[in-house]
């Protein structure tokens, strides 16, 4: 069987484990709860301040982006806590010894684990994201500028953090790896905020710091894409008296990533997986 076949064996095993350990059920339950709360909460907001003009639209959009931020945080934590024990504990417990004594490569194990968890995360991000957006639209009537793209960017952010966590898990204990990934995620977000400030106020230093941070960990590229997709259209912003250009640099707004940044995210994930394979190959079992 090919390497691809081996990767799928491990991916299927990972999916079964997620199902058996009730991870999928827990995520599904949380999703239902969050969607119901979103529908109820946004309904109350819409009752108090029904959308009659750009100002209300702007207000609802900000609450929507805040909701997405919280969801992105939950997704990020899910990605980190699912990914950080993906490899290391199996090595430490000896579980991988029996698996790797079969005709399967270490790279197959790492890529299979990544693929299995990626499927879980992407499915969760898309299902929960679209349901929440549907709840917002139904409750308030607010339709973001690019509602279909927003959950996709959130899923991308989760994949980036999952990749980081899995690569760390090849060498660092799961608790430590998880902590490092969470801190890195927070720093990347803050660096994105500073980069936005740099763009808005023309500070090359801050702008450069933001770019460097995105190169190191591009999770904020995806978050900003999601926030931008959930923001109102430029015409609504302008009608509300908001500078649409500067608005894109606020902490809770953004814009769709450029093709170059999107490509970098893909290259980053592939490069990190290659690094993870190298780290795992050179680790003594």
């Amino acid at each position, binding site marked *: *069987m090919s390497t691809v076949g*081996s990767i799928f*064996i491990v991916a299927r*095993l990972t999916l079964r*484990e997620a199902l*058996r*350990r009730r991870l999928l059920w827990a995520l599904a339950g949380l999703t239902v709860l969050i969607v119901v709360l979103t529908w109820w909460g946004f309904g109350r907001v819409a009752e108090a301040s029904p959308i009659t003009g750009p100002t209300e639209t702007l207000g609802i959009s900000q609450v929507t982006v805040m909701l997405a931020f919280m969801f992105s945080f939950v997704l990020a934590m899910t990605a980190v806590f699912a990914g950080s024990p993906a490899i290391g504990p199996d090595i430490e*417990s*000896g*579980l991988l*010894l*029996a*698996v*790797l*004594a*079969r*005709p*399967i*490569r270490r790279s197959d194990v790492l890529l299979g684990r990544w693929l299995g968890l990626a499927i879980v995360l992407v499915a969760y991000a898309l299902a929960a994201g679209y349901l929440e957006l549907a709840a917002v639209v139904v409750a308030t009537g607010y339709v973001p500028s690019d509602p279909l793209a927003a959950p996709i960017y959130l899923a991308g952010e989760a994949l980036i953090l999952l990749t980081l966590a899995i690569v760390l898990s090849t060498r660092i204990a799961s608790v430590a790896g998880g902590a490092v990934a969470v801190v890195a995620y927070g720093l990347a977000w803050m660096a994105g905020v500073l980069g936005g400030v740099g763009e808005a106020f023309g500070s090359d230093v801050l702008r450069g710091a933001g770019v460097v941070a995105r190169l190191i960990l591009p999770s904020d590229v995806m978050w900003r894409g999601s926030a931008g997709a959930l923001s109102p259209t430029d015409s609504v912003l302008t009608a509300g008296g908001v500078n649409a250009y500067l608005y894109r640099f606020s902490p809770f707004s953004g814009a769709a990533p450029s093709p170059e940044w999107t490509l970098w995210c893909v290259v980053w994930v592939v490069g990190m997986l290659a690094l993870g394979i190298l780290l795992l190959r050179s680790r*003594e*079992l």
Partner: protein
Amino acid sequence: MTGGAAGGIPGGEPGAAAGATDAAVATAAAGATASAGATASAAIETHELRKEFGRIVALAGLTMRVPRGEVFGFLGPNGAGKTTAVKLLLGLSRPTTGAGSVMGAPLGDVAVRRRIGYLPELFRYQGWMTAREVLALHCELARLPRAEWKPEIAAALELVGLADRADGRTDTYSKGMQQRLGLAVALLGRPELVVLDEPTSALDPVGRQDVRRIIGSLRDRGTTVFLNSHLLTEVERVCDRVAIVDRGRVVAELAMSELTRGHGVSIRVTGLTGAERDLAGRYGPARLDGEWLIVDGITDAAVPDLVAALVAKGVAIHAVVPTRQTLEDRFLALLGADPAEGRGAIDTEGAADSGGPTGSSEAIPVRAPR
């Protein structure tokens, strides 16, 4: 595991061991023929295999040859590099220098692992799975045709005595049951080489006996067994040949038949005088230890003559017990260890749980000569 005593090893039909064994041997032979050139090679061959972990030298230069179809014991004190060697052989670790081959393929070859079964010393399986599911996973990993999974799994479970607990989650298993599961995993798919790293460390005496029986079945069908253990009595009972490794090097390699050959006799006597003792001295160095007359170096064939001569001289004979050199004796001698101290590495546990080639010497209050 006793439940599987009558069963064949996986790949054969439980309860019809002989026919199944023939079939398995035929299959193994066909596979061996298919890999041209491999038939002539040893199952395992290493040359100056060295492994360093930073400044620590785990293996200093392992050179050994394991013939196909033998049960090969790999012995050594703690820290001698046994498990490191096993990991190198299975491609789970890379040697710093040196080379080797397993079943005709170079170390680290992925495809050859299809023909190898492995029970790790640190055995652990997916706790959220049942034993049956773990075995199915390994059938898939070993690339067994799906049609063979069910009979393979059923035979393996029966053999290791887990058939009635096959659908229980493995995290509810005792350590001994987990080791039995590990053994079942190692036997799936008719492997040509089975590597067992301390296979009885968590088993009770009954389980150990069953492992010996399973190893015997494997030998009967021509499977090479590489047994890494520091339980000398276990090794002594099942192995055809042993290598003793110390500080990362093989310090001795010997056939068990050579080891268990008679090395003397102990005769419990009364009425012995100096003259009869001198008579015994003609057969070999003789000494008296209490009521026991010990004659070293006498051949098995000469023992009846000696006994007859003593009886003719009026000596009363109460017991005649051949003394043999045990593996432990040889092991300690080779490592230059004081038997009383045992270097903290020798485990003779299980010595009393059954008979065997050395069982008779336990009644003798003397040590065999070295």
